Every structure is written in C-alpha cells, then in structure tokens.
C-alpha cells in the first residue's frame, strides 16, 4: 500500500490551507509530517483521510484514485492528539467498533480485539469504560482500535502530545513495532524535531501549508534544503545571521570573521545567510578552529544534563546548547565558540548552497 498525492490542495472559503502538494508515502517505515502548529499537518491528514474535501489534484491509494471516495470506503485509521473513544462503550466495544461495522464474525472480532489489547497491555481493562482509564490507557485504546482494524493507512496526528513525558517516551518506543509488518502506510504528524529523528523513516517538512522538503529523516536533518526547512527541523530554533563572503573570509553582520573551508570556500563572493544549530555553539572552545563570538546572556535554562543560554549578538538572538552545567550569569557578556565547519550557508533566495 502506498499513498500518492498529486498536486492535492485544500481551500476553505477562499483561504488556501494546503498548497498543491505531491508526495509518495510508502509502508515499512514512519512517514513523519514535521511542522509547527498551524503548518498544515492536520489539514493534510484530513485530506488524505477524506474528512475534508480536496480543492484540486488527486489522491491515490496503491495507484487507485480515491479522491472521490468517502472516508468510510477508504479503510483507514486515525488517532488524534486528544483521546477519542466512544464514552458509552467499553474498551472492548471501542476496539471492536470498526470490526463490527465491517460485519466481521464474532469469533474473529474477539481474537483480533484480544490480540490488539494484549499488544497495548489493555487486557485487564477490556470491560471498563474509557473514562475509567488513565490518559495513557485511553490513548492506547485508540491505538488498539487502529491496530485491530488492519486498515490500509494509519494516520497518527500528534498522538503523544497530550501524554506526560514518561508515557510519551514509552509509547514512542513501542509505536514502530506496533505497526511493523502490517503493510499499512503510517503517517505521523508531530511538531517536535526530536520525535521525527527518533522515529526515523521519511520526513516531510511542512511550513504554511507547503511541504518544503521530503526524504529520509536523517538526510533532511543533515541537509535542510532551505533556511525555512532548517528552522522547522531544529529545537531550540537554529541560529542564523547575515554574512558576507569575500575571498576565503566570512564576515558576519556583527563583525565576527573567520576563514571559510570546504565547499563554502568555493562560493562566489557576496551576501549569504549562515545558520548553525545551537549545539554547535558552545560555551568553551573545543578546537583551535572554533570561532569566538561574544554575546550578552539573557535567559539560561538547565534541562537534565544540558544547559542552554539565549544570548544577544548584535541584532540576533542566538542559543547555545551544551552538555554539562555551565555557570552563566544573566546580563554578563560571555564568549561562545562556534564550530564553523557545521554551519549551513543559504543564498539570498533561502536555498542551501553549502
């Protein structure tokens, strides 16, 4: 089973929510839709699910045109960010509902529900009502329904967003095995870059109703095609600043200079935008090649074993993210060190050039 979008777009009352999009999503791995809130992830999922009308283009399931097919006939599953279970039915009936609607034999329903419940550790809760379960169990119930149905496509719309940290980690680890070997296309929407990296597979970066880049997740992370893509796929946000190249020298608009190496050195002279991930801006020098930049520390955060510092450098607010605990003082000027070999260079049109 594959899902193919051909110039599919969505327009609601004259406002374009999804610009014409072409994508092919395959089974066997997660297809992650990564973008900030409002980027169009849910809209795109609803389009593929047939819950919202398509304005133009086509949607193909395994080459078959399903554009005009109703949701009921597409044989799909959808798990939401908020937990959707029928409140007046038991957990068993909830998981069984799509099978019952399909008119499956009773014994078959029972074995399938039991199997899905076992995988998601819901066995002892089958007779309960959803509201008697914890949040994590409710979401597992919704996931069990998707698994038991054995649909052609499974859409997971930020399914872990409303769970607490521990549960989220646990369930995220389980997810890939849950859907492995079932032949269904799994589409997973998230706003967290880290989640996309953990789930692997392929990622479609979304921004303002446009899929800006689509490909293997790690590949996109390493080579964001545009500045926007780099921004979407970075948390904390990627640091960027205007830069002018003359000869082999790079000069930031704040006056910092360094010598360009590698492909960047071959670029024609002129203005560029340089972008560097927060964990390549360190509070200490790692090598003698690191570029020293001074910034005024504004906000500092300690999260577990990492410490981050938001600092002001000229007109730019930058972030440094480093292992270990660093004693920043808010308001002081601190010298940070940038590993320039990890920087991305974007042309004036926002495309990656080196």
């Amino acid at each position, binding site marked *: 089973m594959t899902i193919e979008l051909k110039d599919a777009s969505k327009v609601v009352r004259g406002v374009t929510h999804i610009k014409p999009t072409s994508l092919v999503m395959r089974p066997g791995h997660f297809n992650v839709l990564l973008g900030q809130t409002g980027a169009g992830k849910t809209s795109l999922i609803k389009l593929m699910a047939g*819950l919202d009308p398509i304005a133009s283009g086509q949607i193909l399931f395994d080459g078959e045109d399903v554009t005009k097919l109703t949701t*009921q006939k597409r044989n799909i599953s959808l798990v939401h960010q908020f937990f*959707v279970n029928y409140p*007046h*039915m038991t957990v068993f009936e909830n998981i069984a509902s*799509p099978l019952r*609607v399909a008119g499956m034999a009773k014994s078959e329903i029972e074995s399938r529900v039991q199997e899905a419940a076992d995988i998601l550790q819901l066995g002892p809760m089958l007779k309960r009502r959803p509201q008697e379960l914890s949040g994590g169990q409710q979401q597992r119930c919704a996931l069990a329904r998707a698994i038991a149905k054995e649909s052609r496509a499974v859409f997971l719309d930020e399914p872990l967003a409303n769970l607490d940290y521990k549960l989220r980690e646990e369930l995220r680890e389980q997810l890939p095995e849950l859907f492995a070997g079932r032949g269904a296309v799994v589409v997973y929407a998230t706003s967290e870059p880290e989640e996309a990296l953990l789930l692997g597979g392929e990622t479609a970066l979304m921004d303002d109703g446009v899929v800006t880049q689509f490909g293997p997740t790690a590949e996109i992370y390493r080579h964001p095609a545009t500045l926007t893509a780099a921004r979407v796929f970075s948390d904390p946000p990627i640091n960027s600043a205007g830069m002018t190249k003359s000869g082999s020298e790079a000069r930031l608009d704040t006056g910092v200079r360094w010598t360009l190496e590698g492909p960047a050195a071959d670029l024609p002279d002129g203005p560029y935008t340089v972008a560097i991930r927060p964990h390549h801006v360190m509070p200490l020098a790692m090598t003698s090649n690191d570029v020293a930049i001074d910034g005024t520390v504004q906000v500092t955060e300690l999260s577990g074993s990492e410490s981050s510092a938001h600092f002001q450098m000229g007109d730019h607010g930058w972030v440094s993210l480093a292992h270990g605990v660093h004693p920043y003082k808010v308001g002081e000027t601190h010298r940070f060190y940038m590993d320039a070999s990890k920087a991305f260079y974007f042309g004036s049109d926002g495309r990656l050039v080196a």
Partner: protein
Amino acid sequence: MKTENQRAWFFVLPVLLLVAFNALVPIMTVVNYSVQETFGNNVFFWQGLDWFEQILRSDRFHAALGRQFLFTFLILIIEVPLGIIVALSMPRRGIWVPVCLVLMALPMLIPWNVVGSMWNIFTLPKIGLLGYFMNDVLGINYDMTQQPLSAWITIIVMDVWHWTSLVVLLSYAGLVSIPDAYYQAAKIDGASPWKVFRYIQLPKMKTVLTIAILLRFMDSFNIYTEPFVLTGGGPGNSTTLLSIDLVKIALGQFDLGPAAAMSLIYFAITLLVSWLFYTLMTKDDAK
C-alpha cells in the same frame, strides 16, 4: 472542631412552607374528601374506601382510562420519532440555527386554551380553513363535532403540533453536545448514517430523550385544557379523557367523594408509570 448552628433551619423553612402549601395541604384535602360523603353545609359522613372501590369497578372510569392511555401512546409514538427526525435535520451551525429554534419554540409559547380555540376554529366544517378544505375541496367527510374518528385525529394532530417542538429542542440540545471528533471517528470506522445514529447520536441523546418522554408522558396523561376547549370530550364521550371525566364528576355532578378518590388513583398511576419508566431508563447508568 464542630460548630452547631441551628440558624440553618431558618434558611430551609421557606422551602418547607412552600412545599407544604403547594403540595401537602392540597393533597391532604383531597384525601379528606376521598374517604367521606358530603351533602354540603359542611356535614361529612365517613365512607372508608368505598369511593375507591366504586371508581376502580366503574366501566366509565375504565373507558376513560383506556382512552387516556390510547391518547398518550399515540402522541408518544408520533412525537418522539418525529421530534428526533426534525432535530437531526436541523442545521448544526450557521445563521439558520436561531431561526429554526425560534420557529420550534413558537407553538409552545401559545397559551393552552388559545391552542384549543385556534384548532377549533381551524377545523370547524364550513367556517374553518381545514374543515372547509377537507369537506368542500377534497370531498372527505371530516367533522370533529360529529365523528369520533375526526375528533381523535384532530386532538392528536393538535397535540403533535403543540408539543413535538419540546422533543425537538431537547434532542437538538443532546445532538449539538456531540463533539465532531465522534462523527469523524465513526466515519473512519466506516459507519453508515444509521449506525452513526444508533451508536453515537442515540446514546448521547438518551438522557435528554428520557426527560422529553417523561415530560410528554406526564403532560399528555394529565392533558385537559386543549381537548376540553376543542371537543369538550365529545362527540358523545369519545374524547373524554381522564381529566375531562374527572372535572365532569367533580364540578358537573358535584360528586366530591368519588372525584377525590379518582384524583388520587389518577395521581398514583401517573406517578407509578413515570417512576417505572425513569428507573428502567437510568438502570444502566447506575451500575
């Protein structure tokens, strides 16, 4: 530390007084009449339970009770499904929602005796619009002052017109409280419109429907004003429902004892049926 404060009683007292004057005192008066015979002048003779026995054995009471149950049964099986269908076909959002709601509420805002008069004039042969149309245009012999069947059809249509809105409004309230997510989930499950109704809308409407049916049962079982104004219980006794018969006994014949006994039996039946229905409908939730 526990503080004892008797002042709380002062706050409860008004309610106790209200309930006493509203319910207890009138009922006790009726109980008083139901076990005695009076010929006026405040002279009473003890009768024990004779009136109750007489009423329960009387064919006239049985006939009125039968008509009453038939009437309530007919209007319930028409108004409840019709109300649900109308509620389902009303828009969920947009500018037509308030328009529909106001239109639905209109019949219920009209005073009951006005409803009776309206339908009386509306259905009279020769002068009523409907009466004229049926008899002189369609050629159907329709006269609720002469034919029991016409009279029955008229009081039922009148009640459906007057009270279906109540079922509509309550069902509608139940329907709009269903989040879109359930409709979406049902679509994804592949459910047909009938299954969506059966497994999502109906369970969600269950509580309000219980209330709607209960209200419609009680109101229609105790109905008096509209059929009294419309047919006065006729032709003959064909539309003499319990309450009309009761008033005839109490005020027409001035048999206060039997009328009081009948009131209590009437009250007990209404209470019993309502209680049974409510208990059965809410049995599952209590588990």
